[in-house]
């Protein structure tokens, strides 16, 4: 993530700088691009309406807010069983469109599919670790859990993915 310029450039600048990366973060967790954009926009609109709730580094606040937004969305999907219907309509390699997925190698498509099959918490940890390249300590701060939990969740997530990839190979 680029250095934040929230203090210098205001919310507009933070929004412009981080929009795409936060959308990708949400898309990897939700496996749904449209919903990811909704979540990120909701986060920014909430910040915008409330004025200035961000304290310290806005990157941590925004990542945490986006992940919370993703959780809310996943809960809503579970309640109304929309997620399953969406998965049927979606690309074979969420969150990419079918055209984008076609440009990805078979191996990478399988890896993304294995990631999408993980429980949300494991997916969050792995995306923060391997997409945003955050350290265990940073992930712990973002998710509000202990570094030890980050480590064990990541290990279980990777082990589950390894098994899944072995079975589908």
């Amino acid at each position, binding site marked *: 993530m680029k250095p934040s310029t929230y203090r210098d450039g205001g919310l507009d600048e933070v929004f412009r700088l981080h929009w795409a990366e936060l959308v*990708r973060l949400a898309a*990897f967790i939700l496996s749904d691009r449209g919903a990811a954009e909704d979540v990120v926009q909701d986060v920014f609109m909430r910040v915008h*309406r409330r004025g200035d709730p961000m304290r310290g580094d806005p990157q941590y606040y925004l990542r945490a807010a986006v992940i919370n937004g993703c959780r809310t969305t996943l809960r809503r999907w579970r309640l109304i069983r929309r997620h399953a219907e969406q998965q049927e309509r979606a690309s074979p390699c969420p969150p*990419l469109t079918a055209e984008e997925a076609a440009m990805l190698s078979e191996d*990478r498509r399988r*890896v993304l599919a294995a990631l999408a099959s993980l429980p949300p918490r494991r997916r969050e940890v792995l995306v923060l670790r391997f997409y945003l*390249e955050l350290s265990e300590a940073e992930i712990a701060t973002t998710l509000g859990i202990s570094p030890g939990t980050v480590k064990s969740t990541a290990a279980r997530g990777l*082990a589950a993915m390894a098994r899944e990839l072995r079975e589908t190979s």
Partner: protein
Amino acid sequence: MTSEDDITRTADRLSAALGAAADLMVVPDAPALRAERHFKPAKGWLLPLTAAASVVVIALVAVFVTHQASPARTPGGTQAAAQAPLPEFYMTASYASTGPNDLYFQVRRTAGGAVTDSMSISAAHLGWGGYLTAAAGDRDFYFAHYPYCTKAATVTTFSRITITSSGRISSFTAVGRPVPGMVTDFAVSPDGSRMAYNALAAGCPSGPGTLPAMTGDIQIMNLSTGATRTWQNTAAQTRTTAVSALSWAADGRTLVIDEDSLGGGRSEPTVYRLDTASSGGSLQGDSTTLLRQNSSCSTCVSLAVAGPGDSITALESQTGGQHPRVLVVSIPAAAGSPRTVLYREPDDSANPVLTGSMGLFADPSGQWVMLWPTGGVSSPQHHPIVPAAGWISGGRLHSLPGAATVFPQGIAW
């Protein structure tokens, strides 16, 4: 049961898949954040007043910007040049542990030094080192390569590595036309359309201590068409010359050539400024000589590259103390204009820099330069000098995090 190897391999695959997917994922532009904000309708009489105020503000901003970019504020340059941003990424090329025929590239962030991506290619060798260069915009990197010396005639090919705004490698493609022989130095123009190079006509040296014939000629290839123009080095008819460095000025037309005349004792560098607008001809005829130095120098230029405007930036070694000190200076093109010292190695440096094995790498604007140990520095005992690598600004060497883990054969930003 999942083994440790499985986990590690899965982590690597996941990292690569997420990076590739993120690069492919097209995210629409951020929507208007202020869509919900309510504004009171402006009153009609405010419009002309607002317009007049805008004109005054624009005029003031123009005056301010002109003042900020005036030549007096551009050290070393006689032409006004806007401050180019510090390159966000740099690329290193080194030999993989499997041997000198495998090249390993890393993309790193200038701030923080994090590796954002890497790749390796087989059956490729950077030759005499340092043949990695970048076009303006900090996204396209080029390198020249050929199979490791086989004592047979070789062909040098050129490739481009493109990175995304997040530092991921998005493409690796061949560019231009292969060149017979060994390219000893090359540079791609800031707009990425042309490549200047010097090549040895023969193949690899036929044995220890022997070198193919050097010509000192300069070729410029159009990377779209492969058409090549040649400037012959007439001085090479009377003495042995070798091109030490090629670099393009930010204007994309001027090529700075740092040439060494070889012979017994110390080398004698000459720095030319070649106007590449013509269709080719004589290097000396189409160039102005910016610098010529004989072997009795006390502060000796070891390398010179294009600087901002029409200046050059030179790496010098100053003798006189316990060991030679490194100086990086900006030398204006106009004769008699004062030089500016951009960096001087501290006298009390705990880890003196080995001047002879240092490289100077400028970005395409010529405004940012990097100092880095290059050829000959490949063994672990040289580790202590690596922290001296970094980029120069405000008289200081800003070290590049992560430098200690890389001994690049090539580096560019």
